[in-house]
């Protein structure tokens, strides 16, 4: 743990552009995030929100520019990545083991997303919103420094939205960085609200 906490998480996106299917996405985007920052990325469908998160996560490579990040990352995107035939608890435990997360962190994540009552139900029986909560719980349990969340509010009821708000605020307050890609305006105080439509950032 000491080595993880020794350096603060940071994220530096420098003049990034990427080609997606013969189309230039994110032409010349630059963003800097320090520990404690929440960055809210907005934009129309297809403007490159998910692409940006996948670039930061290292799943795609940039065509030009640089991305430098410091700290462990966790990603919650449209793919659930939880085995459908096992219980919610077992599916989350698999990833918690991958992340080296403790049983306490796992239980705390289940509680934070109000999944205790669903813990022993197979993942395939979950509703859309419950699936989303399970994938958010995986990010919470991971203890990662940088959270990448792609449309995390989709399908959530208002109580769950409030829980997610609180989880994001807590993570940032504890020195993490949270990137949220969403089509709605931020519901919480953010360090940077970035609109990919016009390519200009307003603090």
């Amino acid at each position, binding site marked *: 743990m000491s080595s993880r906490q020794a350096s603060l998480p940071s994220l530096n996106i420098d003049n990034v552009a990427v080609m997606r299917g013969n189309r230039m996405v994110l032409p010349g985007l630059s963003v800097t995030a320090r520990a404690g920052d929440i960055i809210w990325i907005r934009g129309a469908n297809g403007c490159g929100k998910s692409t940006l998160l*996948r670039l930061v*996560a*290292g*799943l*795609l490579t940039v065509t030009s520019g640089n991305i430098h990040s410091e700290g*462990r*990352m*966790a*990603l919650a*995107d*449209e*793919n*659930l*990545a*939880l*085995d*459908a*035939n096992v219980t919610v608890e077992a599916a989350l435990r*698999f*990833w918690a*083991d*991958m*992340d*080296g997360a403790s049983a306490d962190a796992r239980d705390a994540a289940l509680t934070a997303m109000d999944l205790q009552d669903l813990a022993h139900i197979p993942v395939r029986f979950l509703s859309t919103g419950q699936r989303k909560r399970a994938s958010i719980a995986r990010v919470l349990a991971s203890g990662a420094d940088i959270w*990448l969340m792609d449309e995390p509010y989709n399908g959530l009821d208002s109580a769950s939205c409030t829980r997610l708000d609180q989880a994001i605020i807590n993570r940032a307050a504890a020195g993490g960085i949270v990137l949220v890609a969403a089509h709605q305006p931020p519901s919480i105080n953010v360090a940077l609200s970035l609109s990919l439509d016009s390519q200009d950032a307003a603090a």
Partner: protein
Amino acid sequence: MKAFVALVAREVRLAWTGGGLWLPVVFYLAVSTLFPFVTGPDKALLARTGGGILWIAALLATLLPIERLILPDRQSGVLDQLAVRGWSDELVATAKIAGQIVAFALPLLLATVVGSALIGLPEAQLGTLLLGLALALPALSGLSVMIAALTAGLSGASALGGLLLVPITIPLLIFGAGTLAEDPGNAMQLLAATSLAITALSPFAAGAALRASRT
């Protein structure tokens, strides 16, 4: 290391629950049951050709789990999640191959004991057959993961998988059948060498395929 073991264990569990375990075994035993119907109950003929038939049945059984090896993990985002955690694609492929060796190769070896009894293979040949298959099955496991990675998401993936597998397994089959001859020594060594080369290379080929298909 603990995470690697967890990933291998997950592969084995998915095989147990997803039909990847019993499907190849049942297929393998079905072939060895059907073969005597075709040739008739000629004991000498069965003893001479039975080992080769089990080899071919093992090759074909390799194809059965291909569709569930990579594609479901790509679609559900498991491969992405592993990549975010810093797993190299080669390491993911290695874990999947190790899982295949446990969940596919070992049961097939056990089924060989039953299969050889069904065909009426001489007991002296059973040991040679088991040793040869034990040498070749890691390579077949590696090939099944590699082909699954290459064809994941393509239409007609299973048919394409068959076309890809058959030419690559020719050396395994030639040396494998060679071990059933009077003196299996040289063929066994060549089989071991071929299998080792294929097993060692397959994680890199599968890893490259995983990386190339990430969008």
